[in-house]
Structure formats: C-alpha cells, structure tokens
C-alpha cells in the first residue's frame, strides 16, 4: 500500500517525531517502499496458524510481589534533564 503525505504526517505524529512539511514526501516514499516489501507476506497461507507470542516454549517466571529495592531517589533522578525537589520536571501539562 502506498503511503501518502497525509498518512506520513499522521504516522510521524503518532510516533511523536517532528517531521518538517518539506521532508514528508521523501518519508512517504521510503515508508511506501518498506511496506511494499512487507506485502510479500500476503503470498503466505497462514490459515489456522496462531501468531507466535513466545520465542521458546516456557512459562514466564513469576516473582514474589515484594519491594526488592527502593530509597534510591538520587540515583533515579541522576540522569534527568530537569529534576526539581525530588521530581522530574516537564513543561506545564494542565491549564
């Protein structure tokens, strides 16, 4: 399926990546090429096949629902671009 400029704009928006208007045609072309390649999958008969969910047939392990660490606020915030008073700071979210 060919991706038009509007779809490319919408995908960029959903992916939260700013793409300049001037770059949308090139992006649409590249995405179309990649999706065209994926369309080869339509040749395969997948009737009755379950989608693969687990790479190796094993049950996911569970662990006890207990706190295993904590009290590491300084470490958690160490790499933050903007941390204030023990919190991550971001631009105003609510009016």
């Amino acid at each position, binding site marked *: 399926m060919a991706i038009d400029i509007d779809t490319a704009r919408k995908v*960029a928006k959903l992916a939260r990546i700013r793409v300049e208007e001037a770059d949308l045609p090139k992006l649409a072309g590249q995405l179309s090429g*990649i999706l065209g*390649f994926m369309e080869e999958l339509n040749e*395969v008969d997948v009737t009755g096949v379950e989608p693969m969910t687990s*790479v190796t047939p094993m049950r996911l392990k569970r662990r006890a629902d207990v706190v295993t660490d904590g009290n590491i606020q300084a470490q958690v915030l160490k790499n933050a671009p903007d941390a204030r008073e023990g919190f*991550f700071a971001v631009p105003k*979210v609510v009016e």
Partner: protein
Amino acid sequence: MSANQWTITAARDALRKGEISAVDLTMSCLTAIDAGDGLNAFVHKTPELALEQARAADGRLKAGDAPAMCGIPLGIKDLFCTKGVPSQAASNILKGFRPEYESTVTSKLFGAGAVMLGKLNMDEFAMGSSNETSAYGNAVSPWRRRGSNVQLTPGGSSGGSASAVAADLCLAATGTDTGGSIRQPAAFTGIVGIKPTYGRVSRWGIVAFASSLDQAGPMTKSVRDAAIMLQAMAGHDPKDSTSADIPVPDFEAALTGDIRGKVIGIPKEYRMDGMPEEIEALWQQGIAMLKDAGAEVRDISLPHTKYALPAYYVIAPAEASSNLARYDGVRYGHRAKLAQGDGITEMYEKTRAEGFGAEVQRRVMVGTYVLSAGFYDAYYNRARKVRALIKRDFEAVFAEGVDAILTPATPSAAFGLGEMADADPVKMYLNDVFTVTVNLAGLPGISVPVGLDAQGLPLGLQLIGRPWEEGALLNYADVLESRAGFVAKAEKWW
C-alpha cells in the same frame, strides 16, 4: 606477536602460568587502542577502570582464584549499560547518559575477572548493517581490498566490536544480534561471532531494540574463545523474565573435534538468485570440510525462508517503536530546547526529532504504522504467523534428525562505506537475509571465517544449531575452523 594479538585461550594460559600480568596484557591493548583511533572502534575509552580491574585480576591470579576470563581485556558494545561509564547506544538521544547500574552480562564478565577497555561503536540502537547510522560516525574495518585504500564497513550493528577484535585492539568483545548484528560483522572482518539461543544470555541492562529477537554473544578470534567467553556471559537471570532457567553446560569441554555421523543440513532456499559465485564456492568448500570430518551432509528445505526478511522488518520495528517510546526527554538523555509556549507534546516531538537519526526515526515510524489501528492484523499479526511457520520449518528438519545447518553468513563480502548511501533502505536490509531466520526462530547461530574473496576480503559461513545446543554447535564450528585454517589478518594501515 604482542600480547594484544593473543587469543583468550593463549592469554588465559599465559596469565595462569605467570608469563604475563593482567596489567601488562591490558597495557598492550590500551597502546593498540590509542594507535587505532583511525578505526573509530572505541568511542569511550576507560583506561583507568581497565588498569584497576587488571590489578584486581592480578591479585586473584596470584591467589589461585582465576576463572577463565580473569584478566582478559575486552571491548564492550555501547549498547550495554555500564555503571558510571557513558552508554548511549550510539544515539544522540542518550548523549551524556551514565547508568547507575551494570548490565547482567558485564557484571558476570567483571565477576569472572574480565577487564573493560572501553565502549565500542555500533549502529544507532543496533539498527543497521554497516555501522553507518552511528552518532559517533562510521566504524572502519581494518580490512581493505587488495591494492585499494577505499574504507570498508566492518558490518553492523556490532561494527566497532568486529573492527576492534579484527585489528587486535582487544582480545574479544561483546556484541548483540537482533537480525545478524554479531554474525554479519564477524563474517565481514574474519572473526568468530555466536548468537546464542534466545534466553541463554540475560538481556537485562542491554538497551532494548526488539525484545523478542535481541540476544547478546561474544565476538572473538577463535571458536574456542567464543566457547570460553559465552560460558561467562550465559546463565539464568531473575531480572530478565525471558532468561532460561536451565543449566549452562561446559562449552569448552564440548569441543571434542569429533563430528562423525552428525547430520548437517544444506537448505536449498539459501541459494539466492544473483548470489556471487564466490559465496557458492565457499559454501561447497565448507560442505566438503564437514564431510571430510565424517559428518553426513543432507539437502533440506526450509520453505518459508523467503518470507523471513519481510516478517522481520514488520516485527523488529514494531517492537522498537514500543521500546523506544521511553526516549521522551523526561527521565534521561537529550531534551530539546523549547520555544515560548511549547507544551509537553512539542517537547516529545522536538526531542525525538533531534535525538534519533534517520534510520531509527524510519523504523520507529514503520513500527508505529504496522501497530496502528486498522493495520495491526494485516501487518503485525500476519508477520507473527509467518514467524511461527519459519520456526516450524526448523523444528521439522531437526525432528528428522538434522543436527545443524550450514549456510553462507552473508550474501557478499564487506562493501565500501558510503557505497549504499543512495540505495533504497530495503537494499541494506538484504544483508541480513541469511541470519535473520535464526533470530525469528530463537536458535543459536555462529559465523566462522572460512576464506578470502578475489579481492582479499574475508568470507564466513554460518552454522545454525538446535535450541540450547550451543556446545554441539561450537564443536561443529571448531571442526570447520580447523579444516578451513583461516589465518589471514588485515594488513596494518591505521
């Protein structure tokens, strides 16, 4: 031969006999690294840490407490989080990130006494097959075509690892492999690289690309080295829920050299149209070598092979778009400078546009598209069904008694840096055509250097094993390696 050129095996024996100290061995690598800046393989050097670890290793060696990796100097792919040391997955979005924790693989290696020389170049977020998507710039292969000074790719995504090991800047390196990122660069640079069975090595603390496909493994100068280093990396980890809680056998002990009566499958679907004659000839040589060692060679069919690449390029971007959603400029890494009136959405969008390179942006958007409402079934679910069929193909041949499968590792020798710059993205994806099936099926696969092409560049063959049978796989690879007798090294120009 200076010590940085040694194998792990040789260094281990010399260290234990006291013929060299871990500090001297490490110094030898640090000198080679400083002289190797032209390769752009090491992107963060950690000489102080290396010498501190080497001194500790010397202490352990003296006390007689010396695991095999004790005192062995390694390069670590930038994808591994290393405490206090820059770990940015070759992306500008993680510029300045210094983890407060250590990945399970590096903790295990350090626990075994290994020495970290620094962090290695790679494709951004491991997305690439030529190391040309890196925020650090290209890693360069030590190899050149005969009579040419064109710079070649070391492959990708573990390009820095391949270049560093092939150029003897370190004894071995860690790599990760999502669609061929250990095996393709190993083949391009004449070294050994193994991707273990999915779940054999913990993924905890490794920056995630596509979680159902990612697996870490060693990149080394010999198959025996791969067995020794994989031993130290493998094992159950409660911090990775997909890590297998099964015992890790002694991989080095599996190298018996005896493969008599073992059945090696040759899949006809790997004979691609337009494949260079040299690759076909190499494959035939490999078949002859294994036959000569007493293996039974059998033609097999893996009918869904053709669909592995398109299935991969749905599944991997889908998982990546989800995994990379965390890079939003809030908790770590880059945050864009905001204009007056910009809100949180603008912060996300500008941060991700500035921080991610073109290929990563493309894959995140492809992933977003195939997971979006209306397309989820048509693309993502269909790809997962095809994946199930690809896995079934392998299960069928293993059930019929095939012990391992021999294929080419790559469809060509290394290409020049920049040669693919104007190509369609799909053309670059074709590099993974022989390796990607193994990730989709979760199997172990190893690339072994077998010969040189007409231009003097290394070519490798791939062996694919049964799940959890890395020991047997390494044994077949060891036999192939010794029969091939590959000893060529890149001529030093850097």
